[in-house]
Each structure stands twice: as C-alpha cells, then as structure tokens.
C-alpha cells in the first residue's frame, strides 16, 4: 500500500490478480457443510407458498454425486432479496440455503416459491454447486414448470431453446414438492452460467 500523499492519482493502478478458485474437496462436511439448519431457506410463517425443493445431482456416468454442496439464493414471495442487517440478527427468511447431498445424490430444502424481481424475468432460484472434481463452482438457475413468465425471461432467452428444459423444476401433483435434476454431462446436461 502507498503511504498517504504518495498515491498516483493520474492513472488507475493495475488490478490485483484475483485469488484462484480451488475445489471444495470431499471433506467440506466438517466445515461449511456442517449445519443442516441451512436447509430451511424460509422458516414456517414466512409469507408465500410453502414448497419442498429437492435437488439431485448426477455425474457423467449417470451416477449420483454423493459429495456435492448445494447453495441456493432466492427472492421472497414479493420478489425482494434479503439484505443482512447484521450478522447477529437471525432472519426469518434468509433467502439462502446450503445442504450437502446424500447417498442418492439429493438434498431437500424447505422454502417458499420466490416471486419475480422484475417484469422481464420469471421467478427463479440461483444455485451454486460445489464438489470434488470441480476446480471452479458451477452456477445455474431453477425455474418453475408451468410459469407463463418463463417465455419472457431475459436470462432463459440467452439459452439455446433445446436446453432450456434443463433449468425447469417439475412439481408434484399438489405443487408442494418440486424436483430439480442436475446432470453434469450427457445428452441432457444442465445449463450452467458464467457470471
């Protein structure tokens, strides 16, 4: 760092080189994967349509990925993102969830259906996926089957039409449980985003 008075004001300094991503490895359960409480994105009583969201991950052989960490981020039912007031204030609705997958490659979150944040997007949940074998984490999105706004979503419009279905969760008959399948490779490989 420059001492006061020594800053070079006439030109932008070269950017620092960013820290490189590294894999989360197979043993993250001792750290960030430790708490199952993070499976509750919206506590009971939060306004909105309560759903269970099951995320299941498969590798290039079609085998379940039993050591993935799945993180969700979503808006509330009115489309607003939660911003922290302080780290010691427990939110009722965090908008954030984090679970490790089990032996079947799946994990299950309790949340509410998000609302759209703007008129040109469909309601969605953002997913970050970490695992052994991923040197950088993957980012994808969950949309909801049957949502008419899907046709006007600006991000989905970037995705080749034939691959959009990989981003759509399927609901149970009563709409209470939604399934989202992540395929890392293969014919129906899930779309991942560079953000």
């Amino acid at each position, binding site marked *: 760092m420059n001492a006061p008075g020594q800053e070079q004001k006439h030109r932008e300094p070269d950017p620092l080189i960013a820290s490189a*991503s590294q*894999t989360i490895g197979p043993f993250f359960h001792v750290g960030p994967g430790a708490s199952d409480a993070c499976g509750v994105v919206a506590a009971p009583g939060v306004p909105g349509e309560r759903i269970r969201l099951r995320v299941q991950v498969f590798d*290039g052989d079609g085998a379940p990925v039993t050591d993935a960490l799945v993180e969700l*981020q979503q808006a509330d039912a009115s489309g607003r993102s939660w911003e922290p007031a302080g780290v010691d204030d427990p939110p009722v609705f965090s908008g954030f969830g984090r679970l490790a997958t089990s032996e079947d490659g799946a994990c299950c979150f309790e949340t509410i259906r998000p609302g759209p944040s703007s008129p040109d997007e469909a309601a969605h949940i953002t997913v970050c996926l970490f695992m052994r074998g991923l040197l950088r984490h993957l980012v994808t999105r969950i949309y909801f089957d049957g949502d008419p706004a899907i046709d006007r979503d600006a*991000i989905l419009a970037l995705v080749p039409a034939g691959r959009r279905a990989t981003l759509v969760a399927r609901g149970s008959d009563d709409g209470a449980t939604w399934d989202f399948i992540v395929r890392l490779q293969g014919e129906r490989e899930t779309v991942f985003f560079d953000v």
Partner: protein
Amino acid sequence: MASARVSEIVMTDRHALEAGSQPPLLYPPYKSTVKRAPAQPLIIVPQRLAGLTTPVYGYLPIGDTDNDLTRQHTGEPQGERIIVAGRVLDEDGRPVPHTLVELWQCNAAGRYRHARDTHPAPIDPHFSGAGRTITDAEGRYRFVTIKPGAYPWGNHDNAWRPAHIHFSLFGRSLATRLVTQMYFPNDPLCAYDPMFRSVRDPRAQQRLVARFELSLTEPNWALGYGFDIVLRGRESTPFEGRV
C-alpha cells in the same frame, strides 16, 4: 457508466481464465474433473441482467471460539500452533469489510475428522478443523489453528496433497463467491499437486501461498502466516457505503 464498469469485470475475468489465473473446469491430471466438468460451454450472463448480482449472505451465527481452532475442545490439539491472518480485498485493492470467512482443514497428522477419510493417521479428539469469522471494517480477519499435515490421496500413484487450508468467502455478489485453498511457503509437494498446478499463471499460484510474517508471529507462542484473499470484481466504488 455503471454498466460499462461491470462489463469490464466480465472481460477481466474471462481474460484471467484464458491467462491461466483461474483453473479450467476440465483438467485431466485431476482425475475427478473428467466425469464432473460440464462438456457444454457456460452461458455468459451480461452483468446488466442484474438478477444474478444481488448480495448473497449465509446466515450463520459466529461463536466465541469460531476463529480459534485450538480452543474448541477441553484440551489443546496436537501440532504446531499457527496464526493465519490477512485481508479480503477486491481487485482494486479495496477492503471487503464485514464478509464471512470460513475455513476447514485436516489435523497435524493429515487426517480430517470425517467418516470418509480413511488415511491411517490418528484423529485428534481436540481438533474439529473448522472455523469462521467476519472481516472487520478494513477487511481484516484472523484465525488461530494448527499447521495441517500433508496426506495421501488416490488421484495417481504416490499422490500427496500439500499441506493446505480450505477457505470459503461470499463477498458482495454472486460473482465474488469463492472457495479456494491456502498453501504454505516452500512446500515441495505443490510442484506435484494437480490442484495447485491447475492454476497455470505463477503469479496466481503465489496468490494461493501464504507468507511467513514475523509481524504476525507471537513471541513464545505461535508462528504467523499472512494470507490476503482477492475477490473478483472492481465494483466497490458504486456500491461503497451499501454494505
């Protein structure tokens, strides 16, 4: 103006990838990438589609001993006590204050407290190997822990991971989310480690190696290692005061 700045971020990152300062997704020397790296190209999201840039933050309460891995049990863990401290910065060198820093590691013998870790080295009943803290107003963090051991893994014949500590950070947006690893200076195992070598740019490799620092070292108690973490993005000016 703001959108011009953010598109710059996208360019910066893409160029960084091409220059080898971020690892590729498919890197066959690290075998697990072969069946797990997506085959299709990633879909590039212009930052003006702001839905992916909302602040993210995991709510996790911070406990008194969460930043001191040597005080989480009734007794002290075995091994070499160390201090790991540094700053979280953006690519302009500006501090990232009040952001969650999580770390986890194996014990001094090279064993994780994890059911799937089968390395025949002793488990330390006084070491869980996980910590978390929040950066202060200047982006600083500090942990007390023990130096992790090297351990074998099954990637190739006689494969050993260099001693390392895993770090997880959120920063201000989805684009700054980072999971990385910290290595120790002058570790001969780094030259053989496909994870370390997946980062090809030597400057980016050095960013992942902690520095021994006498100023962080506490006399008659523990060696100090400095480790600054630089999150992607140069966006702090438009968002200053919003954190």
